[in-house]
């Protein structure tokens, strides 16, 4: 049996909706058994992302204050094209925009535990995340 190996992955979650953010963080923390960093606005997240710290995976809601998730996606993909960005939204129109801007995944709300597990499988276990 091939064992799944979880690397020392660094994940951040950006969402100002505390209920959704906490649920996502709990599920991710349980899945990968690592600390998850959180932000409730795009500006603080952008400041952190610009630090020379390893960062593998970014989950961001589209509607966040300061710098919204779509603008943040655009900025990150221009400056750090290898960082993996997953845009979350309850607006179907954001899917096309996310695709155009180079998002690695679109997480449509409402999402479930299994959707998060699938993302962990794809981007963490199968080694598609890179710094």
């Amino acid at each position, binding site marked *: 049996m091939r064992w799944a190996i979880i690397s020392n992955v660094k994940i951040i979650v950006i969402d100002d909706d505390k*209920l*959704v953010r906490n649920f996502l963080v709990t599920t991710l923390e349980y899945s990968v*058994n690592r600390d998850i960093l959180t932000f409730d606005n795009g500006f603080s997240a952008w400041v952190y992302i610009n630090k020379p710290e390893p960062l593998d995976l970014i989950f961001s809601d589209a509607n966040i204050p300061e710098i919204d998730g779509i603008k943040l996606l655009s900025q990150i993909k221009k400056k750090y094209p290898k960082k993996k960005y997953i845009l979350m939204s309850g607006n*179907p129109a954001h899917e096309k925009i996310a*695709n155009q801007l180079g998002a690695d*995944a679109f997480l*449509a*709300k409402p999402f479930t535990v299994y959707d998060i597990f699938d993302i*962990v499988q794809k981007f963490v276990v199968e080694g598609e995340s890179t710094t």
Partner: protein
Amino acid sequence: MQKFGAHTHNIREMDMDDIFLSRLKLLVIMAKAFLDGCPLGENRCRAILENARHMESEAVILGSLLSKFKQDSISTGAMDFDHLFYQRVKLLAAMVKAFAQAHPLGSHRRKSLQDNLDIICRIMMFKGEFVRRQFLEVA
């Protein structure tokens, strides 16, 4: 770009019911994984405790809302059923907290945990969804 989550025609913002149901499924997965011998670890324990505490308080809030409603009207079988369900969720949360805090289990508690899980899964019609994920088998 990969897509996850709701189908396009079902996309909407998440509400409290979505969160409650998802967290309940996560609680069930956490309990089943533990019973199956999946390893814990510091972060995992913290996540388990956070989820269990959240569900415990949500179950109390929902249960007390039902109790208040009961006082104001004639009790029906359906409301008693709901009340019992929320008590079972609260019990599951307490059971999950116990193993996350490394309290001793024993065969009777293990059976009680399994029985409570089975009943909750039956009520919620969680059937065969809990396919084991390999990444839960490593810490």
